[in-house]
């Protein structure tokens, strides 16, 4: 009898992927398309046995009656796979490249990504079933990240083409990460400064509600590429008319239009978060606060803001994660950031270059999301 469908689906998916999809791709240089290397071909017999063992544990767990010990077993097996798969992939790449010229490329392929993702999801499922606290989750995620980072510094992944692309563009990569973070941070802060007052206005003055959210809804429906493009004209005209602005870095392309577009997209969820947060404060609480002689500012800061905080943080979380993703598109108008690798890779049909932009973006989004989960947990715990 099937006791855990989630694990079963994940194990089956990973199993099919391992059999049918390449684990690595191997090409004599970065321009030609490579040869597919299956899992069985890529790794040693001992490593394969360990992977199968972990897979068998997970598969068996799908049929056993749930208990704490079982969930812990699943967690251990899934985490082992999550750590082990990148390490064997790195080792396999080293072996492959050693037999070829230095410009040969070994890249991670579909089979690897699906197995790695399945293992991580299985670990997440086990954590959820264990009802793990935030501290335990944070500890595990940081622990795994630390192991992989240390392995990376000691050269375990050096021969993977992703690492090679990163090494070739070390400075550009560091710049892009920094620029990406800067775009997100500035636009989210501006959205906070503008969106929260808009949300408060909409809540305080029902007349403004339609205007504020109607306007922001329209902005939200403009496709992101179109919005980035739309801003080029007016900003270019503005910087032509006032050359001083250009000295400040404001022109039709670059950082200024990118930040303006990101802020515009962030305003709706930010204002909604502030509005919904304030609306979640019981009317009786505001009534007694007034009745006891609190001023409007005191009611907002001491009573409404703390009660609204969890909802507001949820809005901020959506805004930040969304901005990290949208900032990729900003590369199209010359704002830089990780998107520049994605579009460069698209243009050169170099998958690894695209991944060099996409993978860090995903990790940045996941990391920020995780930090907000912790903050939300803390905001909810202090009632």
């Amino acid at each position, binding site marked *: 009898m099937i006791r855990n469908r989630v694990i079963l689906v994940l194990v089956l998916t990973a199993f099919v992927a391992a059999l049918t999809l390449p684990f690595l791709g191997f090409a004599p240089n970065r321009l030609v398309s490579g040869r597919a290397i299956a899992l069985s071909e890529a790794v040693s017999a001992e490593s394969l046995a360990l992977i199968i063992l972990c897979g068998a544990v997970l598969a068996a767990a799908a049929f056993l009656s749930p208990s704490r010990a079982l969930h812990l077993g699943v967690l251990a097996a899934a985490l082992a796979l999550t750590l082990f798969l990148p390490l064997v992939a790195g080792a396999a790449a080293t072996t492959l490249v050693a037999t070829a010229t230095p410009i040969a490329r070994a890249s991670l392929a579909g089979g690897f990504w699906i197995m790695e993702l399945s293992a991580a999801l299985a670990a997440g499922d086990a954590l959820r079933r264990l009802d793990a606290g935030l501290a335990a989750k944070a500890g595990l995620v940081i622990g795994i990240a630390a192991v992989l980072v240390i392995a990376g510094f000691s050269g375990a992944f050096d021969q993977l083409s992703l690492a090679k692309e990163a090494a070739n563009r070390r400075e550009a990569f560091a710049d892009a990460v920094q620029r990406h973070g800067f775009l997100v941070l500035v636009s989210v802060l501006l959205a906070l400064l503008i969106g929260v007052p808009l949300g408060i206005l909409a809540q305080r003055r029902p007349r403004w509600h339609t205007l504020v959210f109607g306007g922001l809804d329209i902005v939200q429906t403009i496709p992101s590429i179109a919005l980035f493009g739309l801003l080029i004209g007016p900003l270019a005209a503005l910087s032509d008319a006032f050359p001083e602005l250009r000295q400040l870095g404001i022109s039709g392309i670059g950082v200024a239009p990118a930040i303006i577009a990101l802020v515009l997209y962030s305003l709706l969820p930010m204002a909604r978060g502030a509005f919904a947060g304030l609306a979640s404060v*019981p009317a*009786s*609480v*505001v*009534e*007694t*606060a*007034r*009745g*006891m*002689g*609190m*001023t409007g500012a*005191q009611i907002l800061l001491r*009573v409404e803001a*703390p*009660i609204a905080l969890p909802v507001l943080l949820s809005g901020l979380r959506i805004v930040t994660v969304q901005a990290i993703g949208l900032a990729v598109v900003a590369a199209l108008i010359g704002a830089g950031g990780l998107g520049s690798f994605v579009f460069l890779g698209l243009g050169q049909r170099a998958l690894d270059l695209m991944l060099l932009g996409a993978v860090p973006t995903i990790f940045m989004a996941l990391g920020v999301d995780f930090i907000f989960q912790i903050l939300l947990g803390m905001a909810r715990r*202090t*009632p």
Partner: protein
Amino acid sequence: MIELEHVVKRYGGRGAVDGMTLTIEARTLCAFVGPSGCGKSTTLRLINALIRPDEGVIRIDGQDIAAIKPETLRRGIGYVIQSIGLFPHWNVADNIATVPRLLHWPKARIEARIDELLHLLRLDPGEFRTKFPHQLSGGQQQRVGVARALAADPNIVLMDEPFGALDPPTREALQGEIRRIQAETQKTIVFVTHDMDEALRLGDRVAVMQSGKLVQFATPAEILAKPANEFVRQFVGGADMSIRVLAVARVAERMRRDGAAEGEPIRERASLKEALTLMMTSGREILPVIDDKGARVGIIRLTDLAHL
């Protein structure tokens, strides 16, 4: 002392409060009673300036409240509402400390005051200080609500159907607390209710309202004995009226200073209803009466209960 003079408050052309004039004496409990929409809550909210009158003057201790900054005025007036409105993110102690903190009392004085009030409302400080509102029962929450309203020792406390959402036993217990606290602290309490029984039981004087107008303003006994019009008579409830008189009138008002009786005594502050109950359960027609200190002060007979 609270004075209302020709006070009018209109909503959409209709007078929610329509030419109200009355004086609430200091250190008394005045109960506003009437059907919903009669303007009793509006009157209450006019007194602490949560709303402003369209016409008329409201004075507290002779001073026109329109001339006082509303926040200052409200910090000097306790306020309790039916839905209680405790701050969910603060514990009991912080909730009670709200107004003292707004008034910048020294810390030690606030802490002492919190304990004093929890004792007054019969909540153990050791147990309740650090609890959060969602951990309390409805009755406990409203005890904290009352404690919070009394925190800065205001002369006036406004209560808007404070016990309306509580179950009958809890409600009766809290009504008893309000009477006791009023006697101990000598506050001026303005109490709004739609329940005539509650108004008669608690009020030194009862203000009956109908459609924004004051219909009768009198002691509970007067309201029962001489209802001003048919509306009040109906509201007091025709047939049950004599029973209500028993519940409102005190033994002290009907007892005789002479004579002697045996058996379990009745306190002179008890209601006639309690005296009748004791007579029926103990099978006696005469009860000895004692004062608060337990000294014999007289007797009361079954026939004394009868005349109005």
